């Protein structure tokens, strides 16, 4: 009984948003955009301009910052031996109109219906450091509360969602593209790992904006890590 309102809410809020993720190719990590789950079944990636990339971070296994080589073309490639790789992208302002969604701020279109500024980030953990339970940026981040790389299939990973270092409550969290729940008052949620291999967990936080260029700022973040075995 207790889950009634909650579950209906999250299922009612399924958003078929795009995802971003890294795949290793040679000595670099390639940043893909599209549908991660489908990509494993037959690649559904979408081209994106390299100008979307706003920020990157590469930390080694001692949590020291590295300066990897970053390609200037799409898809973006990040070199270096990063234990933690972070990338922030923004496709800018979007406004929904009667003629469809336009990649423009609200004040540059006629008859705006709804508008938002989009930020998407991804954090990949390849090698664990205990410091990674803390945020590495001031943006929206999913923090693993234990070493996720040591988990096995069907284990649960405990996560905390933060923005500017503060817990974000009631945010919807997706795993394999499906909503699994909302964060609690501490920004925490548990997700069971039901597939082997790469794990992509996504959360979204909506923040009111100034109303001039956009009604709200939509922050979406991804956490990517791998557990033992290959995805079946």
């Amino acid at each position, binding site marked *: *009984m207790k889950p009634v309102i909650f*579950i209906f809410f999250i299922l009612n809020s399924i958003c078929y948003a795009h995802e971003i993720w890294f795949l290793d190719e040679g000595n670099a990590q390639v940043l893909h955009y599209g549908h991660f789950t489908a990509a494993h079944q037959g690649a559904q990636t979408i081209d994106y301009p390299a100008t979307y990339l706003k920020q990157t971070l590469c930390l080694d296994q001692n949590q020291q910052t590295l300066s990897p080589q970053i390609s200037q073309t799409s898809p973006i490639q990040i070199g270096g031996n990063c234990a933690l790789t972070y990338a922030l992208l923004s496709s800018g302002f979007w406004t929904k109109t009667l003629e469809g969604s336009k990649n423009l701020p609200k004040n540059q279109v006629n008859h705006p219906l709804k508008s938002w500024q989009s930020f998407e980030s991804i954090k990949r953990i390849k090698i664990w450091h205990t410091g990674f339970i803390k945020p590495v940026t001031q943006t929206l981040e999913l923090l693993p509360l234990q070493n996720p790389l040591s988990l096995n299939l069907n284990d649960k990973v405990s996560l905390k969602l933060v923005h500017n270092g503060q817990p974000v409550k009631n945010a919807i969290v997706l795993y394999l593209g499906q909503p699994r*729940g909302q964060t609690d008052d501490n920004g925490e949620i*548990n997700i069971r790992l039901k597939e082997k291999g790469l794990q992509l967990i996504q959360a979204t936080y909506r923040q009111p904006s100034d109303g001039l260029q956009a009604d709200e700022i939509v922050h979406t973040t991804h956490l990517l890590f791998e557990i033992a075995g290959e995805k079946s």
Partner: protein
Amino acid sequence: MRKYFFISFFISFQVCAHHGIASLGVAGLEGPGAPIESSSSATLNQQGTLAYLKLEQVRFKTYTPEIDNEMKNHSYWIYGAGYGFTPYFSGYLFVPYQSKNVENNSFNTSGFTDISVQGVLGFKYDQGLKLIPVKESLDDLEDWHFTVYSGLSLPTGDANTKNSNGYIDGGMSLGFGKPHYSLGATATKQFGKFTLTLDSSYLYFNEYQYADKNKGKFGSEWRFNSALNYRLLTNAENKLRLDSILELNYLNLGRDKTNGEAEQATGGNILYATSGLRLYYDKFSLGLGLKIPIKTNLNEEPLQQGSEGKEKYRLLFSFSALL
């Protein structure tokens, strides 16, 4: 008629005291399913309120060809309300109404019976036992969940209902005269589209002296229920879910006592099978089930017409809403 004194009383109490109804009448589109008759291990959201209604129509087998005083049917309406004091503790209030009819209508009764209150404590196993937290993900809901519950009735109904001749038949009365107590425990586990529920409970009755000076004490009741839900379909767009449910419901009835002596034609063991469907829509849940005895071992079987185990069927209907 005497034989009904305790026999049919069981039936009325079982329905109003049986927990399970309310803690479970609702669920989400992907969370654990709720049985029809058994109690599951769900608790109400903190500060969540539940409104509940259960209808049960019981039709008994009759054995004599003439129209006599054999028990014909019972109907029960249970109105309930629940409140989540914390995520792990819910309280319920049940107000039952019953109608009992014999074949020749020589002694029919109807009216509100004893109200009851119940408390449910919920906990789960997730790397150890812990109380139900404020929020759980769908993955958390797949853990083993448990409840322990306890309740008591308040003697608000008329325990001395008389027929036209002034005769008191406790089995037809609208109350027990004294509180009775329940204690139970449940376990629930979701496996993908399946949900397994186990539920056991014990009911204890106090002795009561009726207005005609006779003393009656109903035998204790012990139940063990198991239920398997299967999620047939979900439609997130329309907030709709449909489950099929199969249950086995075991009931052990103790022998009643009248003026301290064991009463004949009371008590025994019954195994019921219940099949049903539960429909969820938004914050509402609708359950429909058919419960029939599939194996009985009553103490004086030929004399226990009108008792549990002697039903043709029990038709169950429940409705619950989160307010």
